[in-house]
């Protein structure tokens, strides 16, 4: 099922809030997962798995390291769900 950029960003913000406690407002496209949001590699995997379930997509381990910013993840999920 296709998702819009807005839907994916809002959904990711919800998942990140649940995993890290970060306010959903802080999750902006330009933010880096590690440098800005202080999300470590283990939390990132939890976020990825929850995003896979929420959006019905598959994100292989090798692709996760390319998801540097929130926008990278949004673009990946929108494309994968198209």
């Amino acid at each position: 099922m296709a998702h819009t950029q807005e839907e994916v960003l809002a959904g990711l913000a919800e998942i990140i809030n649940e995993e890290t406690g970060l306010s959903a407002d802080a999750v902006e496209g330009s933010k880096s997962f590690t440098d800005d949001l202080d999300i470590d590699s283990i939390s990132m995997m939890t976020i990825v798995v929850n995003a896979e379930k929420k959006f019905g997509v598959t994100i292989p381990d090798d692709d996760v390291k390319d998801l540097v910013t929130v926008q990278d993840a949004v673009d990946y999920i929108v494309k994968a769900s198209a």
Partner: protein
Amino acid sequence: MTVLKTAEPVPYSRISGIGGYRAEHAVPNADLIEAIDSSDEWIRQRTGIVTRHRAGAEIGVLEMSEEAAVEAIANAGISPADIGAVLVATVTFPYATPSAASALTTRIGTGPVPAWDISAACAGYCYGIAQADALVRAGTAEHVLVIGVEKLSDFVDPTDRSISFLLGDGAGAVVVSASDTPGISRSVWGSKGENWETIRMTSSFLELRDTPGTPFPTLRQDGPSVFRWAVWEMAEVARQALDVAGVEPGDLAAFVPHQANMRIIDELAKQLGLPADVAIGRDIADNGNTSAASIPLATERLLREQPQLSGGLALQIGFGAGLVYGAQVIVLP
């Protein structure tokens, strides 16, 4: 026509005794952080580990195994001569052959019984329980000694940020015995060879010999990939183990997963929806990741600190390099 005589099967097996050996030297995070340019907080946050125990040069796989085995045999109320087979799960015995198990028969004083090592890394102990259960129920041996032992400190690189700082040394042992009542469920075990390199040695011994400049082989892992597999795929294996045992999460007295990382343990417990009163093995905080030894050591500690758990059901699951995994529900000794 002559009909072959075969071993007489027995209906059930159970764990009748347990013992553990913890390495002498507690190594705090502070001793390791400089080489990996990190901090105590960084290690605690990512792994939950405060210290790991490591053995000195004079203590090896055999010495640690013997200590744990002697305690397990005494705890089972039998003598070494009653042991019918010795299985040693380890990936750190520094000889490809002969086996640690064979050496241990004479150290412990069993008879000239079958003895072999199991190479299944952090799943090795659960593989050993699966094999011992099958041996006992087949009538091949009345009592089988299963040891999980590692001296991982011989195979770490102090500068490695992927796994070395997690690792410790130790041994845990149990006796699996014939039983009138069910004590070990059917094992759910398997492998995922496509991920052979996810947890690995840095080189083979042939590369060490033939390629100049090759450092001594040490362990590495792809941490995030291991985390995903260890939580979400192993949660499914754990559910299957409960299912084949006919056990609900609420029936468990304890959950003893391989002590890989506190965050894996926490997330696994969350995925399984364990009730709050299920005791969870969390030996890793003090003892680090001891691979094949971690489940029996965590079990031994739970029983020492909470003796009321004896007789209750415990779900145990090991998973590690291979990738391989094994899980079963046991009645705690």
